[in-house]
Each structure stands twice: as C-alpha cells, then as structure tokens.
C-alpha cells in the first residue's frame, strides 16, 4: 500500500508540474491566433486548449467504464468494479467541464451559451449517462448486485453515445458543419503552426496525467473503502 501511494504521489506531482507548464503556455507562450483569412481571433479561443483535451479525456474515461463493465460481467472480480466506478466519477467531472468550458467560449464567440449542435449534444448525452450511472449506483446497497447492475448500465449507456451522435447528425443536417472548423481538432482552421500544436500536445499530456493521477487516487480510496467495509461487516457478523 505504501509503495502504491508513493507512486500516486509522484504521478500527482508530475501532473501538477505539466499542468502548470500547460497553463503557462496557453497564456504566455501562444502567439495571437489567426484564422484562415489572417484575422486575429478573440483571446477566448485560448479556452479551446483546455476544452479539447478535457473532452477527449472524458471519452477515454467512458471507454474505461465500458471495458471494465464487460470484464466485470465476465470475471466477477471486484477490481473491475472499482475501476468502473472510479472512471465514472472522474468522467462525470470531466464531461461537466467540457460543457462548462464549451459554453463559456460559445457565449463569447456565437453569443449563445447553448446550441443544439452535434458535438454539444453528444457531450450532454455523455454527461447525462454518467449522472444516471452514478444515480443507479447510489440507489443500490448490496455491493455485488450494485456492481453487476451498474455494469449492465455501463454497457448500455456506452452503446447509446455514438448512436446519439448519428441521430443528431441527421437532425441537424440542415446546418452542415457550422462550427466544424474550430472544434474539429488540429486539422481545423487556426491550428497551423508549431506553437499551437505544441501547446495542444502539452495540454493533452497534462490532462491525461491529471486523469491518471485522479484515477489512481480514486482506485486506492475505493480499495481502502472495501477493506474497511470488509472489516466492519466481518466484526458485525462475529457480533451476532
């Protein structure tokens, strides 16, 4: 356990260091950002460098929930349940941050906080599925049953996210890629040039490290919780 928490500590310190560098790069290293026609974009675009890595990380967390759920149903091993619930909680946080950073930028750039755009709605569905997953966990008491039912929902929820992406694409076909250039990744407008790509890469590493550190802390916490529960219920049964 001690060696484990030391590793977690190193990971957390590393995440903090890279995060500082990433924030520094966004605000001081980045030159003014220009779009294809050469006009300088508003500084609010800098939030994109937070936004996109967080979004990718939240999808990654969701994939972990799915994989861990499948393995839990196959093997019934407690560790998979611990991985699933840890990833789900962090994923819920990250997917909320995606919506928050996206809305702040959208207010400045488009004038509205919210538009029923393809990616926005998909992120919203992701967030809602996470919330539902956590709600389901909260309302079940028996640990094994909770793990099993949550795993079932983890699988169903994961399948629904890509499907919502397609259904909204159909719905909004009248608005072909309105904002595709900006949120489409490094291939989009204004993202040419090494300074921008470097900043984006550093931010990606920062958020992946942050996720890894949070995940490690959470998994460790859950393990300790399980150990405490085992002790407590063990004593309870002895008491009878």
């Amino acid at each position, binding site marked *: 356990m001690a060696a484990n928490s030391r590793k977690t500590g190193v990971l957390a310190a590393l995440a903090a260091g890279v995060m500082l560098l990433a924030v520094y790069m966004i605000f001081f290293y980045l030159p003014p950002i220009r779009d294809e026609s050469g006009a300088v974009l508003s500084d609010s675009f800098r939030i994109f460098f937070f936004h996109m890595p967080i979004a990718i990380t939240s999808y990654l967390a969701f994939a972990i929930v799915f994989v861990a759920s499948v393995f839990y149903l196959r093997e019934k091993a407690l560790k998979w349940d611990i991985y699933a619930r840890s990833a789900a909680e962090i994923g819920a946080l990250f997917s909320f941050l995606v919506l928050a950073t996206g809305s702040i930028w959208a207010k400045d750039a488009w004038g509205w906080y919210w538009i029923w755009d393809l990616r926005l709605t998909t992120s919203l569905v992701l967030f809602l599925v996470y919330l539902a997953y956590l709600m389901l966990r909260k309302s079940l008491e028996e640990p094994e049953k909770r793990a099993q039912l949550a795993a079932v929902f983890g699988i169903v929820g994961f399948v629904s996210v890509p499907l919502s992406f397609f259904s909204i694409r*159909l719905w909004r076909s009248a608005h072909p890629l309105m904002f595709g250039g900006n949120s489409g990744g490094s291939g989009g407008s204004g993202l040419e040039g090494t300074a921008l790509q470097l900043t984006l890469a550093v931010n990606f590493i920062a958020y992946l490290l942050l996720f890894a550190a949070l995940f490690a802390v959470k998994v460790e916490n859950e393990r300790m919780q399980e150990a405490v529960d085992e002790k407590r219920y063990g004593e309870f049964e002895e008491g009878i």
Partner: protein
Amino acid sequence: MIRSLYIAAKDLKAEFRTKQMFNSMLIFSLLVLVVFSISFGDFLGDSSKVEKLAPGVLWVAFTFAGMLGLSRTFVMESENGCLEALKLCPVDRSAIYTGKVFSNLVIVFLMEIVTIPFFIVLFNYSLDSGTLLLLGLVLLLGTLGFIIVGTLLSALTLSTRTRELLLPVLLLPVLLPVLIPGVEATAGVLAGNGLSGISSELRLLAVYDLIFFAVSHLVFEYAISD
C-alpha cells in the same frame, strides 16, 4: 422463440383480464395531449406552428405513458415470488426478455393506436390512409426501440430503492437516439412527405432497434440474476 411467445401470451392474458396498465397508460397519454392542447390553445389555428409542435407533443405523451407501463412490467412479477418461478422456467433467460419485449410492445402499441385519433382531433389534422400506415410504421419502429431499452432498464431498476423515480432517469439519456429520429420522422409523415422523405430516419431507428436488441439480449441475464 416459441417459448418467449408463451411468456408474452401469459403477460397479455393477465393484462387483458384487468386492463389495469393499459387503461392507466391510455388515460395518461390522453391527458398529456389535452394539457398540451390547452397550453398551446392560442395558436392551434396556425398550422405552421402546429406542424412544428405536434410531433414532439405526440412523442412526449407516448414516452411518459410508456414509462408508466414499463415500470410495472417487472414489479408485477415480484409479487408472490412470480419472478423466481419465471426464472425456474426451463427456458433461456433471454427468452424471458424477448417475451416481455413482445408483450410490452403489443400493449404500448395498442395504446398508441387508440391515442392517435384523439391526437388528430385535438391538433386538427386530416390524414389519408397511406399517411396513417406510414405513421404506424414510424411509431412501431420508434416504440420498439423504446420498449427494447425500457424493458431491460425496468428489470435493472427492480431491485433499487427508488425504482419508479430511477427508471426515467436511466431511460431518457439512453433514449435520445430513438426520440430524435422518431420525432423527425413523425414530423415528416405529418407534413406529407412520403416514404422516401423519411428513409434515413427509419434506417436509423431500425439500426437502433437492432443494436440495442442484440446488446440487451446479451446482458439481460445479468440484470435479473441474483
């Protein structure tokens, strides 16, 4: 397959003796339509606005009424240890699922067929028989998707503390990919577009039904085992 039909027949027989679930769902969906019709009363004469609103209203009514029924499907079995007896049946667990999907589909679809005339009256539509058939197809595909996921999640929430509250919370986010094409296709049909106008929506609904039926079929066993 035959065995799941037996289970469905048992459910339908039990349901049509009392008609408890059917009646409450039907009255609920009619009430939703009436409430919307009253609150939109001012511009019901303006057909361009009705055309935009009505498909959504119809799906809201069906979704909420359907959810009312779905939360009952497995609660009904939990009395007198029926669920245990059902699990003891010499059939695959997934046959129970298929049977439940089938009986729920029949009940909810019947409820929708009875609701449609009231919808036409309240929102002042005049539809020919071809359009009605097409509307039936859209409703069937959409309802099938709704039931496929809803039956699984209804089994999932059976052992939770707040099952009636939890079912909508779990169901609605997962249901979004069926509601959007469903509403779009209904709007297309009601606006008089033919089959070709709504083919991409119908394809998406069919894909949703297939994918979720396959997934639910696989995981249902875990949702009811204890």
